[in-house]
């Protein structure tokens, strides 16, 4: 049995230990906000927070996560009130939206440690793919979220 806390709730799983966290979240718990894009840690669509750090859940086998605390997009805030979510709405960032759970989780974790990011720091740290190409607004959204966090 593997124990996980996801968005504050405890779960126990009898699953193959190599099962990626991504599929546990989506198919066992039903939290489908976390997306599959590549399965090889390239795209970031599956980004969640594991013990406070942004991680690509497609490449995190749950056998290595016993006792971990996971936060997904559904648990980032109860009402879409996290500054990154607010900034995303204000800047109208998402297009198809498929990458955006991962983008938002990556940015939320990044801003915790970088409250005043420069564009260079953003470029170096936010490496998720957006096939719709929302980068212009994403960049604005990150700066706005940083400002909202200080407000």
């Amino acid at each position, binding site marked *: 049995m593997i124990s996980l806390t996801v968005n504050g709730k405890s779960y126990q799983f009898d699953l*193959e230990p190599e*099962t*990626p966290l991504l*599929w546990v979240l*989506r*198919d*066992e718990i*039903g*939290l*489908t*906000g*976390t*997306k*599959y*894009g*590549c*399965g*090889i840690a*390239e*795209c970031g*669509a599956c980004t969640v927070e594991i013990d406070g750090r942004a991680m690509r859940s497609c490449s995190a086998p749950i056998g290595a996560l016993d006792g971990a605390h996971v936060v*997904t*997009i*559904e648990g*980032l*805030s109860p*009402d*879409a009130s996290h500054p990154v*979510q607010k900034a*995303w*709405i204000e800047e*109208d*960032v*998402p*297009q*198809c*939206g*498929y*990458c*955006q*759970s991962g983008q*938002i989780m990556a940015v939320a974790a990044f801003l915790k440690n970088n409250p005043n990011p420069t564009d260079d720091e*953003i*470029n*170096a740290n*936010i*490496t*998720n*793919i*957006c*096939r*719709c*190409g*929302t*980068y*212009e*607004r*994403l*960049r604005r959204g990150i700066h706005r979220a940083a400002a909202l966090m200080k407000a």
Partner: protein
Amino acid sequence: MDGSIGSLTRRKFLVTGMTASGGLAVGISALPRLAGAATVSATPWDDDGTAANELDAWIAIDPDDSVLIRYQRSEMGQGSMTALIMCVAEELQCDWSKVRTEYASANRSIREHNVYGDQASVGSRTVRESHLLMQRIGANARERLIQAAAARWQVPTGECAAANSVVTHQPSGKQLRFGELVGDAAKLKLNHEPAIKEPPQYTLIGQPTKRVDVPLKVNGTAIYGIDIKVPGMLFAAIESCPVPTGKLASVDESPVQGMRGVVKVVKLPDAVAVVADRYWRAKQALAKLEPEWSTGALATTDSAQFSSTYRAVVETPGAVARNNGDTGQAIAGAATKLDAVYEVPYLAHATMEPLNATAYWQADRLDIWVGTQMANNTLKGLAGILKLKPEQVHVHNAFLGGGFGRRGGIDEGLQAAFVSRAVGKPVKLVWSREQDMRHDRYRPMAVIKLQAGLDAGGKPVALFARTAVGSLFRGMGLGKMVKNGVEPMAIDALATNPYDIANQRIEVHLKDTHIPVSFWRSVGASQNAFFLESFIDEMAHAAGKDPVAFRRAMLGHRPDWMKVLDTLAEKSNWGTPMAPGKGRGIGITECFGSVVGCVAEIDLTPQGKLKVERVVYAIDCGHAVNPLTVAEQLEGGTIFGLTAALFGKISVKNGAIEQGNFDSYQMVRLAQAPRTEVHLALTGGKKWGGVGEPGTAPIAPAVANAIFAVTGKRIRRLPLMDQDLTTRTASL
């Protein structure tokens, strides 16, 4: 996992199925509604296709005045869901904050004499071909609500007006809310269609408006095809023959026998699928199989062969798509002659959400949950192939995690249906990224031979082009639509060019390989704008003219092109000096009814390190229903086109696609994304151009022309990552 559905009737199953996914929608309604914003359900489809309090098939108004407006096409990020219901609300005079939308049901359209008409979201035509229809629907509904109120008050309709979801009898000030009138209004039929507003009268159309789907896309609640949950469903992973058009010969199932959760190995003519109780288990089991494929001689083909074949073909006469004057003679007599061959490779769509479909095929009914750009074609296509009556097929269209032309077919839906039938249960079939990238229907590779002649003053007198490119019509099984060896997609943004050059001849070879091809964002313009706009730049330099001035001199008869060109020149500070290593390039084209162009500013080191720093866009799409979406689509289109220009290459080896994931098929990321600004250069009038695709086309030539401006090297082949951009040998 969800329990068995054995004891439920089919009808009940569907209701349960809806609740299972609808449960998420309930979760959403707890969220504060954005003040002043229209909304959409997280599960945008409607299983039954009908609602209480309908005014007609398009509009329902509840007693609390909330208005449901059905959207008949698809939402894949292009924002048309918002734009089209804005067009209805513009005329309906309802409170925008009380509007919600959902997809119109393709099945209902079948049942009710095609009530929703064309439901496709392709060809950047969702808004430009439906805005009038949607305005008329809104106007018709408003007039019936007014008539219903007038009848109740027994006053002339002319004394009544509608605003903000309320009808007012102006002389007396009496009021009735839309919600109180809908029952009466639904029974009325108008004698004639009311007039609709002209552009100067718009109040909502033309306002930058936040998209209705965005709130669902910041908290993980928007349901895409891949997120569907149907009670009792199983999961399937699939692998198709690596060589397109090849077949499955045999597969030894023993490696997966007894694996935990594995239910069945399903053989399809060209693929093998594994069904299991979890997707991950299905995927793991599939990886253990070693299918035998029969591919024949195709397994010896590769990209180098294709390239040399196409290059040979463009040296032979092709089908004539355009012929003005005598191009051969004009070039022979020209003071300056140019001659070049350009080439671009196959490209994958690589939508962020890999293809998937969930199907439940019962004796007399097929349900498909899928994100599709063509709900009604999906319905008809599946019914035709599976020998079902159209009304027996129910397509539940979800949000699309990207479309770009890929989600217009039924590859994944058919597979899911067959697999569901094989196990007698609902099955969610998900393509791995590798399956998605290796079994796309690609943007075709293309080679073009270009020639031009300039007179002694540098004025262009002749342009010749002969392209070799795959046939999209034949790729879709519509080969009959190829006319005299030409199809419009092959020559879009090429034969259609407006440049005032007296002698022009455009020839085409529709040349196929076994690699399947289809529509890819901006379609023919995706290669032809690169070819033509790079070559025009070659001509400008050969003439010793500034590239903008050179184009202007050939466009006096096209005010829309001039407006876009002048906007670009002004906003990009065209002609002002730049630092060493930096340069500008321009590209302009016409795509899906819009004139669109951009200026790219690059920084290129002598060692060949390229950075596109800033891109200035201008578009004339005639009118902009939602200017915010227009800007967003051009910003996104830039990245889509830039990704292709920098990295895009699908190559073939031993008959199979070499790339399989984002490590080998790279994407532009934030670090490579230029600052992008978009300017509307609208000419209004009768023009209504598309915006979803055009932005993708002009960026490649703009960047390539900027590279020439910096280095003097002409880029005649993409992607740029394969080209030598150095200007001197890097010192070690």
